[in-house]
């Protein structure tokens, strides 16, 4: 009797919402993660992997880092340029992530503390990203782009 009731109750309750039901909503949620968590999320299942690969998710992540007020006016322009240069995911992986990591570990006050500094970091990231993209345009050029090697090398903590 109790079980039956429980079963009826479950059936009548509005269906438990599953996070996987709506990809856009999932994207909204994942977009609030930080870089590492987002990468981990991408490994969960195929759906999550696909959603995490959406550039919009990474765009939100990048913009959050920047907390940009400076680039607001050219927002749509920025998106076009970044997309053309290789997308926000690559931007984060190659530039924004390492830059903010490095600045946070070396500086006493990370760029998050000041909007101006964050905007400067964003501009710097974009500049370095464009150089990286340029290197990749190998018209019989170099094998691997290396202008960002200095970001990849370990921070000297002496």
């Amino acid at each position: 009797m109790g079980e039956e009731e429980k079963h009826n109750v479950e059936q009548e309750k509005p269906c438990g919402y599953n996070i996987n039901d709506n990809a856009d909503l999932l994207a909204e949620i994942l977009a609030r993660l930080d870089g590492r968590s987002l990468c981990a999320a991408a490994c969960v299942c195929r759906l999550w992997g696909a959603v995490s690969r959406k550039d919009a998710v990474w765009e939100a992540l990048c913009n959050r880092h920047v907390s940009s007020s400076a680039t607001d006016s050219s927002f749509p322009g920025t998106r076009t340029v970044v997309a053309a240069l290789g997308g926000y995911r690559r931007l984060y992986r190659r530039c924004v992530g390492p830059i903010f990591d490095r600045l946070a570990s070396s500086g006493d006050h990370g760029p998050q503390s000041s909007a101006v500094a964050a905007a400067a970091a964003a501009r710097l990231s974009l500049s370095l990203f464009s150089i990286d993209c340029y290197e990749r345009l190998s018209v019989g050029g170099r094998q691997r782009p290396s202008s960002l090697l200095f970001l990849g090398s370990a921070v000297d903590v002496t």
Partner: protein
Amino acid sequence: MELMGNGGGRVNQEYPMGKRKTMAMEQDMDAGMDELLAELGYKVRSSSMADLAQKLELLDRAMGNSSALDDIFLSHLASDSVHYNPSDMSRWVDNMLSELDAPPSATFPSPSVVDLSPINVSSWLGYPAQPSLSIQSDCGSDSHLGLESREWKRIRTASSSADCSGGLIRPSEVVYSSAMPMMMVESDHEAGIRLVHALVACAEAIQEENYKSADAIMKQITFLTSSQHGAMRKVGVYFAEALGRRIYSLHPKQDHYLDSAFSDILQMHFYETCPYLKFAHFTANQAILEAFAGHRRVHVIDFGIKQGMQWPALMQALALRPGGPPSFRLTGIASPQSDNSDSLQKLGLKLAQLARTINVEFEFRGLVANSLADLEPYMLDVEPEVIAINSVFELHGLLALPGAIEKVLDTVRSLRPRIVTTVEQEANHNADGFLERFTEALHYYSTLFDSMDGGSDEGSPEKLMSEVFVGRQICNVVACEGFERTERHETLEQWMLRIRGAGFESVNLGSNAFKQASMLLALFGRGDEYRIEEKEGCLTLGWNNRPLIATSAWRVAGAGDGVEAAR
């Protein structure tokens, strides 16, 4: 009495190195020979016991300290040396010590270099604020230096008093003794100082055209360099090579085509591993960006296009500027290469491709010129547009040709550019006197190598190539003369005078450039040793209080903001 005092004393007598014990003994002795030692067969004057003890300590240190060259030394001692009868202990010790010291005392034929008073060493090698030398970072304090120098002097007097050495050893004899790699064992730090002194001594010898002794010192330098590591070693290696080239007049047959292609590759690696070129590009770009604000047709003339690494960032910034991107023309000037237009064309295509992806209207022209002085205004084909002229490390080469720099600055002015950005090394490597030039270069490149030292990419091929890049500059400054010496760096002040004199006025680089550059430098670990400074509107990047490169911006004097280019 002797027996009584000697219960323990007798044992100590056999090892007279304990200074304190011998001092105690001295009180019991008569003047004249020490009786106790005499019983053992040693003739030692009591009054000289303390001195002898010290010398024996030194000798012990020299022989006992681990060094890779120990075996060589000991075998030499076993086979070649002539020793005095050890019963005359003072003479014997002097003899041993002089064996060890013959090389160093002979390698400084000019007494001026021998003066190792603490003041000279530290002030010569270090920059005022730093107690540490610009070459080695792990040295002791000044007082430590002083102690070492006094010790060195004492050893030297010992050697000159010894009979076997008989006065100053001539360079020809040095050839022999430096083949025997022996030296008072010293810390790396002292060896570093010796290396620097040897380098300067060699340069002095060359200045006096005393090539024989210069050659002798070269061997010393090679030996000293081999025991060094890190930045000091690189300094030793490259300066030694440069000095060698000068002494033996070794000028490799210059294949200009191969040379400039190779040098481009090297510069590329230098770009990757160090912040200097990036700093140059970012600060210059910021100035150009600001000068282009509000204009719809812009033209950049790059005096040394190389791989075009400066321009993607500018194009991106132009693409994102409020109001949208202008139409962007780039004229790149390159030196002739064997596959002439091909590489320049490819470069243009690459840049055009990038411009297309970010939607910037772009046009590229490549010009090949042997020298910037060959440029005429008509070649640059200017339209009604705003012009920026950019020169990164391209101007100093013009100083090798009389009249060239004036002509180029004239050409630049006649183009009526909105802004001219120049980046140059902040050093005076263009003095007429060789020695002056040499010591300046030694300071500068030591600091540079110091800054390049110790990253996690040490020993990687990129690092090596960047070092070769710097090494070639060193070779040029030291070993070349006349038209071949193209690395004629001058200080920011000298350039400011020159450019002002040609009818330009300086444009402040502004805080945006400063901030961006500072942030860029923060990304290169060791950010607190790099220093960005503002100097009369120009920005300099330096290492530990020594500025190394300087960016400056200019416009035609009197032009003001009234000059309106076509919109």
